């Protein structure tokens, strides 16, 4: 059983974790990840020397239809690799401020190893395969965030 949501609204982490194991006595573990907008994040494109622009906001664009199916595909791959009970993925879109939640991944399983591994796998694949794009607003203007090679490396370890 799994559910994927792409939405502007915030989510309730406690309620999502509770739902992953509600009325399921065979679940022995729940692992979760919450991604946040970092206040001090600079994009990989360097500003001028000595320039320390903070991120004022982040706007997330996505590809309606494809983004949801890409997330469902990633969850299906996780379910084929590990023994999972429930999976929940929520990704926010639109304009977000520093400190706000962007993404939630929660996984329940009988034993902790499957939940930990699947949660990390889903995040690594989401970062490199799900069509979302971030644009940062700084005091110096807006710019698109560039993809990181380290994310590709993180995803490649599951090959």
């Amino acid at each position: 059983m799994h559910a994927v949501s792409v939405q502007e609204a915030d989510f309730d982490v406690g309620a999502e974790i509770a739902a992953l194991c509600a009325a399921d006595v065979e679940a022995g573990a729940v692992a979760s990840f919450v991604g946040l907008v970092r206040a001090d994040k600079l994009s990989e494109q360097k500003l001028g020397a000595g320039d320390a622009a903070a991120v004022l906001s982040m706007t997330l664009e996505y590809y309606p239809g494809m983004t949801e199916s890409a997330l469902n595909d990633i969850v299906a791959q996780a379910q084929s690799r590990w023994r999972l009970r429930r999976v929940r993925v929520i990704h926010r879109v639109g304009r977000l401020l520093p400190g706000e939640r962007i993404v939630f991944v929660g996984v329940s399983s009988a034993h902790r190893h499957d939940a930990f591994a699947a949660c990390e796998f889903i995040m690594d694949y989401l970062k490199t395969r799900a069509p979302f794009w971030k644009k940062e607003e700084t005091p110096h203007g807006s710019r698109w965030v560039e993809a990181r090679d380290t994310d590709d490396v993180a995803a490649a370890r599951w090959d």
Partner: protein
Amino acid sequence: MSIRVLYFASVSEAIGLTAETIDLPAHVTTLGALRQHLGARHPALLTTKNLRAAVNRHMCDWDATLDDGAEVAFFPPVTGG
């Protein structure tokens, strides 16, 4: 043969369009050929580093073939999460 082409993020911004419908010349049968064909009008399709593309909402390689009515999307590498 007619297809729908969508552009996202920095690619959309550079081109100044979010979508357009294209009548394909007979010699344009693959995703890579479409990129070259549209690149004449939209240079960002040729200059964007690590440009990605999807056909009917699935990421595809440049040798993917195009069918009538296909939905093609061009975009930069993804940065979600």
